């Protein structure tokens, strides 16, 4: 009996549905008081007056802190360009300037509002192109003094926070002899992660150490960031994880945690809780970056891509977070999944006086694939080629060598993806079903599984159940509550409901690279499998004595240890665990795992901080849409996904992630508007104006899982959850343009643009 690939209820499902689950935002500590932040009302300016005395005189106030009370430290995930509080200059609306701790939340907010703050506004750097001009004001006049968090410095200058450039030979020559040069420019807006649970943190300064309670995707990263801001060593910070109400990348870097920690210290060690209002959360969330993507291809008469130039200008916001590391992704996606000649790639990350951007499911890839796949349609249209045939002709195959020298040994899976969707929805039938204002779009992608390190300890309990101690976190995906749980259950031969996994705690569990990039089921599942392997070996050694058999003749299954070929000769593993207490000691195993980066050519580009894509997966999507010619609104009628997953551990978990990613992608493509005004302030500031798609806007996704088990993954698993968000904007845009016969090159596609195009 196996549980791999079976439908198993998720361990946290009942508690979440019934309301029993205690989320980070619900967490309370004895003696806890409340905090509030005073944030900058403008996006750029100089603080001319900051008087906290009125706040200190307010009822219930325990402490008020500003930059003057914080260590003189710079922090940052990749580049240390952030201060805890603005001291003289503010760089984005919502930037913390002071923090208050008081008896009640209302008192804390009232006190924060009582702080006297004068800011002399300065011109805001907002426009990405202007930010790069020599006469633009600098968001960070001191940029040269900043240092990377680790490793050597990387290419950056002025308002350019990071730069990755690949300039292989032969590009200009190919353009000179091209049959046609096809040029496009695409603009993508920001996207807010819009998780249900706003950010929160409870900080406690006790015994000379900081403890932070938070619902977070990456507790060890919080530990490191708090330590940087507060200028202590990482082990002086303990981060305790809690049930998380969604993150999608926005809870990978520290948010309120360092403020809660320092407030507690200022309040004499009382626990202090901070919770974002929805507007604070939206305004300061590291949203998906806006970007301009320019793409130019030299093509032969038959559509062969002789050479390409791709330029990306991405909005870093006012400080860097994870973003410099991600700039190189443009190199990995510049050709999409299609063969082409030499490709010049220029990716720049630009500082602006706006909220810092950061990780969001499918980092950088959503708009890059949108650009590449829209461009493929453009080339096909110019050369009157069938869009699907054209893609198939240039599609990557096994052994494809990429621009960075990485070799994709199994890229032939892409063709299986096209074939799988062809079986579900033949392209010719879709074409035949076209009528006015109805269109189809197709696109394909490859993506990585995040390689970050993970670890687990598996203990066999005396009642035959197992505990898994790990700092991995289930960000809602089911990667822990289904994935890791099922993997350990399978290996130990016990039911999944007999496997208990801890919440993360950086004092208790080993390092974990966070719930990001679809890594948890694969990396932590693998670490837990290695740990379970060790437990199984120990079980067999103890059971060998009880069964008077050689360990190699034993197998562990269905809650027992039994002699192979003689299933009647068995002993329950509960008895083995109890026996072990007094013979070899408690039965437990440990496992650690990290995926190496695939080989690449280090001289292919400058600024190659993210050098290659480990554990590739392959994706093909089709969308069918209908445009309302009166309103310009778009309805997605059908959505199809074929995706390489390695091996399905949980069918429900896999489908849920694909479906959820498509929903998020449809929101990005059609509904979610997060505009920045000329003053650097967001225009959409609540969930009333920031329009998330609803269930009624999302069709049931038709999904085909392609399974090519990964020999290094647990039971063959690869990453699942991130990849399917890459293509909805691309294929929906292609479908809308097909429907109306005109190009639309912005994300999101708005009814305004659609109607204007129809009526033009």
């Amino acid at each position, binding site marked *: 009996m196996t549980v791999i690939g079976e439908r198993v209820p998720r361990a946290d499902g009942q508690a979440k549905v019934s309301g029993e689950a205690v989320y980070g935002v619900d967490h309370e500590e004895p003696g806890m008081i409340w905090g509030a932040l005073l944030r900058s009302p403008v996006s750029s300016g100089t603080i001319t007056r900051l008087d906290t005395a009125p706040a200190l005189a307010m009822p219930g106030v325990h402490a008020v802190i500003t930059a003057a009370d914080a260590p003189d430290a710079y922090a940052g995930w990749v580049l240390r360009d952030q201060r805890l509080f603005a001291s003289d200059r503010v760089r984005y609306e919502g930037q913390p300037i002071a923090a208050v701790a008081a008896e009640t939340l209302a008192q804390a907010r009232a006190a924060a509002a009582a702080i006297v703050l004068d800011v002399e506004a300065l011109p805001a750097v907002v426009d990405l192109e202007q930010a790069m001009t020599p006469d633009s004001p600098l968001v960070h006049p001191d940029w040269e003094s900043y240092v990377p968090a680790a490793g050597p410095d990387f290419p950056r200058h002025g308002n350019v926070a990071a730069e990755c450039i690949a300039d292989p030979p032969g590009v200009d020559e190919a353009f000179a002899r091209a049959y046609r040069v096809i040029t496009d420019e695409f603009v993508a807006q920001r996207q807010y992660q819009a998780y249900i649970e706003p950010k929160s943190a409870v900080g406690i300064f006790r015994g000379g150490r900081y403890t932070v309670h938070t619902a977070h995707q990456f507790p060890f990263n919080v530990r490191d960031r708090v330590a940087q801001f507060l200028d202590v060593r990482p082990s002086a910070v303990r981060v305790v994880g809690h049930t998380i109400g969604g993150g999608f990348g926005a809870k990978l870097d520290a948010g309120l945690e360092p403020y809660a920690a320092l407030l507690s210290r200022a309040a004499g060690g009382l626990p202090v809780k901070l919770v974002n209002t929805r507007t604070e959360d939206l305004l300061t969330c590291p949203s998906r970056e806006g970007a301009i993507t320019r793409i130019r291809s030299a093509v032969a008469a038959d559509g062969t891509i002789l050479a390409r130039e791709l330029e990306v200008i991405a909005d870093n916001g006012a400080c860097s977070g994870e973003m410099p590391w991600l700039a190189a992704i443009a190199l990995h996606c510049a050709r999409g999944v299609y063969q082409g000649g030499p490709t010049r790639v220029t990716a720049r990350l630009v500082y602006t006086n706006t909220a810092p951007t950061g990780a969001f499911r499918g980092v950088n890839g959503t708009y890059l694939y949108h650009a590449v796949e829209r461009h493929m349609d453009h080339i096909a249209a110019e050369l009157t080629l069938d869009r699907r045939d054209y893609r198939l002709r240039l599609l990557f195959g096994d052994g494809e060598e990429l621009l960075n020298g990485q070799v994709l040994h199994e890229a032939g899976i892409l063709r299986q993806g096209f074939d799988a969707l062809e079986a579900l929805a033949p392209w010719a039938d879709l074409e035949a079903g076209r009528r006015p204002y109805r269109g189809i779009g197709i696109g394909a992608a490859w993506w990585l599984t995040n390689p970050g390190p993970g670890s687990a300890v598996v203990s066999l309990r005396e009642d035959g159940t197992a505990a898994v101690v790990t700092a991995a976190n289930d960000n809602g995906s089911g990667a822990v509550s289904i994935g890791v749980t099922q993997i350990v259950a399978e290996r130990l031969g016990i039911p999944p409901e007999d496997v208990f996994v801890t919440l993360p705690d950086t004092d208790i569990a080993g390092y974990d690279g966070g719930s990001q990039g679809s890594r948890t089921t694969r990396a932590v599942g693998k670490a837990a499998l290695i740990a379970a392997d060790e437990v199984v070996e120990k079980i067999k050694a103890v059971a060998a004595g009880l069964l008077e058999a050689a360990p190699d003749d034993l197998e562990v299954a269905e809650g027992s240890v039994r002699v192979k070929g003689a299933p009647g000769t068995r002993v329950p593993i509960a008895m083995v665990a109890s026996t072990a207490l007094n013979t070899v000691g408690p039965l437990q195993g440990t496992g650690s795992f990290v995926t190496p980066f695939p080989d690449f050519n280090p001289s292919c580009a400058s600024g190659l901080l993210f050098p290659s894509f480990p554990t590739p997966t392959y994706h093909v999507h089709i969308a069918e849409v209908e445009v309302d*010619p*009166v*309103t*310009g*609104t778009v*309805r997605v009628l059908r959505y199809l996904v074929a995706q390489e997953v390695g091996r399905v551990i949980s069918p429900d978990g896999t489908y849920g992630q694909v479906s959820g990613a498509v929903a998020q992608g449809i929101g990005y493509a*059609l*509904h979610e*508007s997060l505009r920045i005004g000329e003053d650097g302030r967001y*225009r*959409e500031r609540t969930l*009333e*104006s920031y*329009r*998330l*798609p*609803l269930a*009624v*806007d999302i069709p049931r996704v038709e999904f085909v899982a392609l399974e090519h088990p990964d020999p290094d993954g647990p039971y063959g698993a690869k990453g699942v959850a991130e990849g399917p968000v890459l293509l909805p904007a691309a294929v929906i845009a292609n479908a809308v343009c097909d429907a109306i016969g005109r190009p639309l090159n912005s994300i999101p596609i*708005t*009814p*305004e643009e659609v*109607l*204007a195009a129809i*009526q033009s």
Partner: protein
Amino acid sequence: MELHAVDSLDAALDVLATRGERCQVLAGGTDVMVQLARGEITPAALLHVERIEALRGIEVDGPITLGALVTHRELAKGVLGDGFRSVAESAATVGGRQTQVVGTIGGNVCNASPAADTVPALLVHDATVTLRSSAGSRTVPLSAFLVGRRATTRAPDELLTAIGMPATGEGSGDVYLKVGRRSAMEVAIVGLAMRLRFDEAGTVTEARVALASVGPRPQRATGAEAALVGGPLEPDRVDAAASAVLDGVEPVDDLRATAAYRRRVVPGLLRRAAGICAQRAGR
């Protein structure tokens, strides 16, 4: 803040007679609670009228009378019958199910939002509102009751108790069309209600068109109405109405959409609405 929870009309009018100036009437609370939370209103007292049974009635024989506490959900279910489909359709688009089951028609009218969904539908049915105070009662056309963004002619001591609409005659069809960025839970970018009445020969004898979210208050498009009346619903007639529908209207630029988009979308909506009305009228 004082809270007055009453269960009779007289008690409510008593409170309004003495405290009306600084009192906010609260029914389903779907707008009031949000406005309170945002600090947009700061009343000294709340008058909770939701438990006044006398304001819950629906009379559908002959002229329609709706108690002020009739919920959007009740209307969305079509309790008024086929002659009032625009009212049902508009009520079905107010927020989500949770707001529809508590939000009331009286509240939606008194809130006087420029984007109020039910108001254009009520306007095309020539709705009147009845206001009561301890001193007496008056009934006024809805179009005269709404005077601007969040502004009505309700006096501080008055309570809106009922909404009336004449019965629709034979050969009538009506519709409410709403434009939003997503398929539900939207604040209208534009809302358009229409009611057409045809005679046996197919001549349009009566036309009503009303728009929401294009100006400070929902309003009738009388130019379009005039263009529609007097002959069969032929393309030229509809074109003329589409050209006239924005006469005297200055669509707004706001967070939800530009004025330019509203200008583009309204004529098309009118054409679509005319077709639906004709179909529903059986013409």
